[in-house]
């Protein structure tokens, strides 16, 4: 009887270990290791990847790539890379997708990029920026036009614990307001919930990221941009990068040319976005990000910025420095080292 029990326990342990190893293998064909360099160096001739999988969000990042996505899906232009795009609603899904190797390139929040780089010992690298600020301050109160008017008011905001919180609080403090004393911020769990609150009249001043800001503006219920946060950021000379593109370091090392191609194509998509707003708006609707009319209105309000190389490093460093002072944990506890950046 006793031996039977022992055997049962041993089998249970073996099964448990087996399950975990098997799961790991399914997710990631190559064993993950803390060390970034593989023992076998890249062969002299570089292979081209079968497919380059890119993940973007239903928001400004998706908007920036919508031209590229359209061209790829309609086959109008042939690109050197064979792209496969996925547009996700939730940032978490994208974060886990890039970690597990489901996608090769992803658009994620800037602080998430730093945190992931730190926590995974360099499994991802930043290759380009995608947006500066994406927040807007909307209100149905026409008397609010400057930061002084916010004194004594309560702002409804969302995205606590993300760059949205830090950027908002930084802008407010730079303009002489004291959070909790001269101005109150109430944080809601979901951006969409903030929009709902505004719609049923329980939120007079809302700070929302795009595309929710434009969604509320388009609802036409009396909300307008109270204070243009983009201008405020310029005035305070703040260096804000809210979104970046990252690549899996493994992928980068295997296929550096493919990454270069993406940077080229991404820049092209970005340029087209800012130059032909109405056409891109239709592509945005095509990718199921938002209706074309809403997109056309939103694009001018969003500070898109596709930078690579040294300029990207400068912008991101500035952002990480700011975040490190506000909350080091948001970037993974320490400033990321310079090799977070791909500057070829």
């Amino acid at each position, binding site marked *: 009887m006793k031996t039977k029990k022992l055997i049962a326990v041993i089998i249970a342990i073996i099964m448990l*270990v087996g399950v975990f190893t098997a799961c790991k293998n399914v997710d990631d064909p190559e064993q*993950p290791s803390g060390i970034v360099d593989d023992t076998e160096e890249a062969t002299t001739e570089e292979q081209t990847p079968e497919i380059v999988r890119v993940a973007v969000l239903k928001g400004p990042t998706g908007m920036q790539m919508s031209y590229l996505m359209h061209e790829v899906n309609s086959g109008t232009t042939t690109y050197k890379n064979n792209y496969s795009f996925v547009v996700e609603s939730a940032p978490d899904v994208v974060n886990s997708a890039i970690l597990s190797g489901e996608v090769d390139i992803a658009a994620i929040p800037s602080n998430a990029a730093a*945190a*992931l780089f730190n*926590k995974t010992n360099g499994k991802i690298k930043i290759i380009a920026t995608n947006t500066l600020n994406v927040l807007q301050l909307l209100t149905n109160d026409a008397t609010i036009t400057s930061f002084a008017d916010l004194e004594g008011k309560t702002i409804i905001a969302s995205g606590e614990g993300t760059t949205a919180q830090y950027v908002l609080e930084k802008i407010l403090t730079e303009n002489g307001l004291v959070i909790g004393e001269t101005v109150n911020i109430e944080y809601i769990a979901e951006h969409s919930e903030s929009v709902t609150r505004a719609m049923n009249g329980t939120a007079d001043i809302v700070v929302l990221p795009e595309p929710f800001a434009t969604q509320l503006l388009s609802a036409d219920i009396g909300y307008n941009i109270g204070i243009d946060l983009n201008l405020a950021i310029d005035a305070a000379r703040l260096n804000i990068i809210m979104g970046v593109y990252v690549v899996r370091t493994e992928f980068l090392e295997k296929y550096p040319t493919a990454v270069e191609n993406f940077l080229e194509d991404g820049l092209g998509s970005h340029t087209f976005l800012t130059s032909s707003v109405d056409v891109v708006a239709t592509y945005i609707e095509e990718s199921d990000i938002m209706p074309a009319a809403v997109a056309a209105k939103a694009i001018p309000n969003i500070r898109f910025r596709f930078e690579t190389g040294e300029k990207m490093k400068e912008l991101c460093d500035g952002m990480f420095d700011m975040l490190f002072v506000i909350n080091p944990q948001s970037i*993974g506890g320490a400033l990321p080292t310079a090799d977070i950046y791909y500057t070829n």
Partner: protein
Amino acid sequence: MKKLFKFLSVLAIWISVWYIIARIVNAEYLIPYPHIVIKTLGQLALTGDFWHACLSSLFGVLCGIIIGTVFGVIIAVLSSISEYSDSLLSPLVAIIKATPVASFILLALIFLKKGYVPTFVSALIVIPITSKNVQTGIQNTDKNLLEAARVFNMNKRTRLKYIYLPSVLPHFASAMITSIGMAWKAGIAAEVICSPHNTIGYFLYRTKIYFDTPALFAWTLCVIVLSFIIEKIVGQLLKRVKNES
């Protein structure tokens, strides 16, 4: 002594399994090593926030458990009055029992302030279990004793104290033991979704945002330990009450 030895050896085996898995996975952001988690928990325990959070969460869920118990008993008593009241109340209880916790959390978030949701959800976990058990206890009261009570013209209070209570108490006790652990888990889940400030769930959620897996494990360990402690305390209390009656 033998019990302690058995406990320690089992603990050692499972921690070794954890260690092996962490070694195989070799990624701290996925499965951290046991000693890293313990160290993180130790560091957390030095912060005031940690104890504040534990107390907040405990208080919230405990309130929910008490409220749920009271309502559970009320429903059980009402259901035992007549067949009709039983038919009236039992679908309500059945629905509460069958609804997924997540649905309650999301629904409650719409109506209540986020600080109250964990209490509400814990209460909802406790109600169906308590009402079912207490109702069974009431129904299983020895009919002979009740007959005797009628014969001897016992007043309501005496009947309650000496006949009903002893019959219901063991059922009540088992209801408490079952539901407390579940209520605690559900309460923490509610906290993670609602993020009321300075609760365990709030910090647990933050570990996700910061990709701080060791902290995630540490906070989870804290929840597990507190669960054992609560169940132990309540178990002892109930034993005490049982012995006195």
